[in-house]
């Protein structure tokens, strides 16, 4: 199986995010990390490739920076990466992102395209479905469990009340939830090998995608803030304060 995994480099979620005051775009530092949720997609791709003697290609859009995030995924074992890095793509909406990723993937005719259900920083949550429609393939979304048998892919699809079992023939797109598998940690050899793996860089023009912006940020204001209340250090009687508050709220 020829497998593509969509991944994204994002600013470290542990450090504070900022918006550019004029463009309202997110300020992206050079030092970026692999979106933590993408580790699950990479792991799923590697497992299927392992069972089917396949290959895993990472596909990503965004400023390259120092390629830290991409190298993290390559160190897990992916074979190579296609990265679309283009100044004109700054502040792209979900559809432009999907067009870019689909155009980067289309010539390769992948059997399975894997994506996380949403990124941690943008979380529009629709890019996988947009890619599926662009590629003309079925989408098996919100996978909690994946099995491949011949050319049929089966998943357990997360629902509001439990899960559905759904299946489709390849070529197919699968979006995976975090926790679907236990992602492997890169080995020392993996980290060394990652430095030599091919990373192909493309622009929007290379892919023939024109960027159109049909939305405008009109206003950014602080949300009405909720003020904190009383904070007390527990000295063995903290629970009594909680009881008192629950009584006051007439919960007990």
């Amino acid at each position, binding site marked *: 199986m020829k497998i593509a995994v969509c991944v994204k480099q994002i600013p470290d979620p542990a450090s504070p995010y900022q918006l550019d005051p004029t463009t309202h775009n997110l300020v992206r530092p050079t030092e970026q990390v692999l979106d933590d949720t993408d580790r699950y997609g990479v792991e799923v791709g590697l497992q299927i490739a392992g069972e089917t003697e396949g290959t895993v290609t990472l596909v990503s859009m965004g400023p390259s920076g120092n390629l830290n995030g991409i190298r993290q995924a390559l160190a897990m074992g992916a074979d190579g990466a296609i990265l679309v890095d283009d100044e004109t793509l700054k502040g792209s*909406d*979900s*559809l432009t992102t*999907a067009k870019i990723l689909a155009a980067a993937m289309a010539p390769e005719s992948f059997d399975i395209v894997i994506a996380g259900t*949403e990124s*941690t920083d943008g*979380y*529009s*949550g*629709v890019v996988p*479905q*947009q890619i*599926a*429609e*662009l590629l*003309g*393939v*079925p*989408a*098996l*979304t919100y996978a909690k469990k994946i099995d491949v048998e011949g050319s049929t892919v*089966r998943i357990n699809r997360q*629902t509001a*009340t*439990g*899960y559905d*079992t*759904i299946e*489709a023939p390849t070529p197919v797109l699968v979006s995976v939830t*975090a*926790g679907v598998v236990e992602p492997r940690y890169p080995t020392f050899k993996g980290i060394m090998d990652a430095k030599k793996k091919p990373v192909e860089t493309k622009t929007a023009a290379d892919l023939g995608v024109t960027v159109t*912006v*049909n*939305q405008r*940020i*009109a*206003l*950014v*204001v602080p*949300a009405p*803030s*909720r003020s*904190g*209340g*009383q*904070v*007390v*250090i*527990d000295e*063995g009687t*903290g*629970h009594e*304060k*909680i*009881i008192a*508050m*629950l009584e006051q*709220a007439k*919960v*007990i």
Partner: protein
Amino acid sequence: MAWIFIEEVSGAPAVVGLEILSKTRADGATTVLYFGKGSDAAFATLGEFGATDVFHLVPSEGSTGTAAAAAAIADLVGQHNPDAILFGQTYTDRDVAGRLSTRLDRTMISNGIDVSLDGSVGVTTEIFGGSQLVTTMFEGPGPHLVLIRPKSFPAEPSGGGAPTVTAVPLPDAGHAGSARVTGSFVEETEGPKLEEAAVIVAGGRGLGSVEGFELVEKLAAPLKAATGATRAIVDAGWVPYSKQVGQTGKTVKPDVYIACGLSGAMQHLVGMKDSKLIIAINKDEEAPIFAVADLGIVGDVHQVLPKLIEALENR
């Protein structure tokens, strides 16, 4: 003119759809795209919440139907030219909306918590854990596509009568429409549902282990509370995803939210900060959860919770 897409869940219109309809009917947006088997009772419910016209999209037996639904809606758009189509930020709605966005070549805005439909279409979203509100206006030709987060508006019936229902046949979507449903399973959850509970007890990594989550369950029992979790412990496999509260999980607004051993990452705060009363227990005095908590106890959950549980059980 805006349309509202509403998925059928367990034989009834999805609650998030009724929430959106409750908000938009004042602006005259009372046309619903209803995706599911449908029934007189389901249509009557839509009418009670203000729907006057329903386009009924029925997925064919065994198909997920999402690709075909997007194709059918694209055809309807061609005939009727709505200004906007609103969806819930839910699983199936996202599947249909994403494909529709591609078919129509229209941008979409996700995670809306408010929408304005008078003249131009604007959407309010929260960023940085809900600390800032962004209002985005659509430009260019419609229909403008919006996904609205659950619990953004209260669902309130308006007492309307049965709507006019028009059945819309779904086209064959070819290979893109070849995903089939082979089974459907309900995961048993004890106690009240997270979205409906008056009291929620939630836990995070500070509980230490999957066994630590038992403390959360024990505290929830006497309070008749639902249990919730952070993304960190869901990812770690301690509890199922259905319990996740936050940006990529559920949005909740209970009367009381008791946060146990969770720091209050942005991702979590966005899903629970509108709870009426927040009580937090965490070892780290600097934890962001204390900035939104009405009562914060700086202490070890393994010390505080057993005493609290015992005190409640002895009442």
